[in-house]
């Protein structure tokens, strides 16, 4: 595993009407890593993702993607630079079919010239079905996204992000709202997909089992700061972490 | 110089007062029901027709002429009572949760219907009864003569602004309205009966529009085509003030009123365009209006 830094956050600050949400975060994610962020609610985890994707602008600090500063960019520009995102509440085109959702994402990736041909070209279609099959959504291909159960919505949301063939994918609580039974099957499919696509991943997660099992590295957040970071084993033996975050 | 300013101000405010009544109703209904009612202008013109007819009747019946003032108010009440609940319960409620295009079109359909009903009921010749205007007489400011009725209109508009604000902060129903406007979901979740509130708000909106028409009737009478003219102007004013903003509507009305006055005094050619140019400029600088926010939620 190369240790080349892919995403570097340097001294990020942001506050909303006096309320500090992120207070001096430094975090580096290396190529090929699966990094988990854990921490109590309101410790600024999602805000951090918003900062990394240009949805929010920091009051102070920088974010570099492979050396390029990106905080000033709009979300769509950052998407072009290779960061894709899946949301805590899946963001889908609910009035379209699952297949069309994915086809739109792929067309978006393929760029402006693809915009004038038919959306459902055989090539794109086949590619899309392959992806859906990989994550087990092939049977729902022609269902409307609005008809999907929460777990599958999550999956589709992630697939849309993957369709951009990103270098880094940000996952906001991929397993939240998913039953404990489905949880691991979802993570398995997800990890399989990520490995196949050779995507670096940063995911916010509440389920400690999931974190322990899948993360290479864990960053523990508390009130807008990175409390500590390191391999899961190490982090979960840290008293303070156990007290503050895991709540034992 | 002063001799120049006074007429500008008085005329500006008179213009403003008349536009304000329609705009504030429109904006109130939008803020509460989130429906832009294209038929709102028709309530203004029907109000004018009823008022004029009532006054004509009062006079022809040889009653005390001061009763015409009662007639003006009564006609607004009558129209609001007759049309408000009816329209809200049938058409408007149906449009809740529908896309804007549907809401606008449904009310546009209503607008078309009301325009013709007016013509069928009241005919095509303009009617008016100026007794109220004449009763109040005139006042000379400098070498300018003004109708006291004009000044009354300005007063009435101010009263309405204050009364509405009072109602919203003091009265129970007002607080409920503000709650619904501020956060509809929350309001629903805490079990506020929005159905009744919407009915009330819409009827109030109709009343305000009708009142505007009624108060205009003694000087301006009622004539065909009033509705179409009124509604675009009301749109302009409501948009300038920020949809859903009562004080916004008031300020916008004054701005548009003054704009018209300045046009008439200094660039008569631009009179007709003035309100729209103001609207365009304001919207390009502040797309959500002077007092408006993205969701146009506050009242």
């Amino acid at each position: 595993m190369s240790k080349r830094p892919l995403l570097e956050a340097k001294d990020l600050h942001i506050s909303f009407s006096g309320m500090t949400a992120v207070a001096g975060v430094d975090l580096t994610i290396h190529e090929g890593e699966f990094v988990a962020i854990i921490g109590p609610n309101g410790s600024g985890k999602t805000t951090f993702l918003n900062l990394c994707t240009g949805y929010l602008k920091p009051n102070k600090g920088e974010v570099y993607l492979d050396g390029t500063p990106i905080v000033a960019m709009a979300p769509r520009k950052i998407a072009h630079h290779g960061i894709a995102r899946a949301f805590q509440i899946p963001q889908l085109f609910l009035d379209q079919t699952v297949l069309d959702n994915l086809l739109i994402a792929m067309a978006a990736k393929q760029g402006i010239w693809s915009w004038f041909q038919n959306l459902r070209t055989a090539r794109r279609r086949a590619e899309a079905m392959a992806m859906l099959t990989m994550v087990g959504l092939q049977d729902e291909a022609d269902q409307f996204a609005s008809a999907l159960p929460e777990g599958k919505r999550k999956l589709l949301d992630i697939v849309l992000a993957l369709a951009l063939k990103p270098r880094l994918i940000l996952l906001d609580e991929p397993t939240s709202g998913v039953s404990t039974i489905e949880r691991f099957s979802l993570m398995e499919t997800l990890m399989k997909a990520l490995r196949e696509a050779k995507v670096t991943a940063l995911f916010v997660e509440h389920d400690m089992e999931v974190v322990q099992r899948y993360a290479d590295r864990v960053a523990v957040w508390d009130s807008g700061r990175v409390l500590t970071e390191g391999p899961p084993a190490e982090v979960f033996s840290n008293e303070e972490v156990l007290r503050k975050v895991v709540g034992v | 110089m002063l001799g120049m300013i006074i007429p500008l101000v008085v005329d500006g405010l008179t213009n403003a007062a008349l536009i304000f009544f329609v705009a504030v109703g429109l904006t109130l209904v939008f803020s509460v029901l989130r429906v832009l009612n294209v038929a709102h202008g028709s309530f203004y013109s029907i109000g004018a027709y009823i008022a004029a007819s009532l006054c004509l009747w009062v006079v022809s019946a040889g009653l005390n002429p001061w009763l015409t003032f009662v007639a003006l108010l009564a006609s607004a009440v009558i129209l609001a009572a007759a049309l408000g609940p009816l329209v809200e319960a049938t058409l408007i409620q149906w449009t809740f949760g529908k896309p804007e295009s549907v809401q606008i079109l449904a009310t546009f359909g209503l607008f078309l219907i009301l325009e013709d009903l007016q013509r069928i009921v009241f005919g095509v010749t303009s009617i008016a009864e100026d007794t109220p205007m004449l009763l109040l007489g005139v006042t000379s400011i400098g070498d300018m003569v003004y109708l006291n009725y004009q000044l009354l209109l300005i007063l009435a508009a101010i009263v309405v602004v204050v009364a509405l604000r009072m109602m919203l902060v003091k009265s129970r129903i007002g607080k409920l309205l503000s709650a619904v406007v501020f956060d509809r979901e929350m309001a629903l979740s805490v079990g506020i009966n929005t159905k009744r509130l919407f009915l009330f708000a819409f009827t109030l909106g109709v009343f305000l529009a009708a009142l505007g028409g009624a108060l205009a009737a003694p000087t301006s009478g009622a004539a065909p085509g009033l509705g179409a003219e009124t509604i675009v102007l009301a749109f302009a004013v409501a948009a300038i003030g920020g949809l859903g903003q009562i004080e916004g509507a008031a300020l916008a009305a004054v701005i548009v009123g003054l704009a018209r006055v300045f046009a008439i005094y200094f660039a008569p050619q631009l009179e007709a365009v003035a309100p729209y140019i103001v609207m365009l400029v304001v919207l390009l600088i502040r797309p959500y209006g002077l007092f408006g926010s993205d969701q146009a939620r506050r009242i």
Partner: protein
Amino acid sequence: MRPFIYLLAALAIVGMAAVPFTAPWLQFVLTLGIANGMVALGVAILLRAGLISIGHAMFFAIGAYCIAFLSRMGINEFAALLVLGVTGSAVAGLIVGAFVVRYRAIFFAMLNLAISMVVYSLIAKMHGVTGGTDGMPLHTPTFFGVLLDKPGFDLALYYFAIVLMLIIGYLVHRYWKSPLGYALSAIESNELRLEYLGVSARSVLLIAYVVSAAISGLGGVIAGSAIGHILPDFGYWTSSAQFVLIAVLGGIGGAAGPFLGAFFLEMLHSASVNITDAWNLITGIALIVVIVFLPSGLYGLFRKRRRSGS
């Protein structure tokens, strides 16, 4: 059932082609019907993105006034007028669009209304240039090099309009089936996701806006040439609303919808004016009935049939 629809469509086209011989007066009505249908189609493109423009009559008017000015300047070939008229309204669409695509929902509607009212008032005002409310005459141009008298030109225009309707209809159909078309409805359903997919909603809308303005201008060119006289009323807000009305009446489910709506309305109008002059009342009721009972417009009637068929 699909073939049934195509058969129906084919019959309709044949029927239209026969009109000049079966019911000559209808020719003019239908020419206008096609023109209005064009504008409504333009409006429909934006409705796809959930944006309602109460101002598209301005592009209709701009298209019409463009050719009026050009013919005053001595350009007297229909083909040239057509191209330049459409270009003119497309350019106008680009300028206006650049401003309005930043806004959504009611504010988009309002801004369009405001701009169109300014355009309308200016056209009605500038007597020296536009002939004010009396409008501008339009001399019968040559038709692709052929010099025709007015009846001949009208007839040629009529058939040409039918062909244009089919071509434009097909192109818009393709547009809606392309990613660009899907992106429109994506803007309505989830703009955030679209942005995160790296797509600029504004450029998607700007393209749509320019296209719709161009098509509306085309409608203006056809209507103007058919009437032979251009009036500011073309751009008044009520006619803008009429175009939205037509689009929703016909349905935006397919490119055929707006044209269905336009023909329906023209027929309804021609039928009602002879019975009563309360035609506002009738259109109003028709409109409400349709949006309440046919949420996907007249076009929905055929769509349903097709579904149940396949």
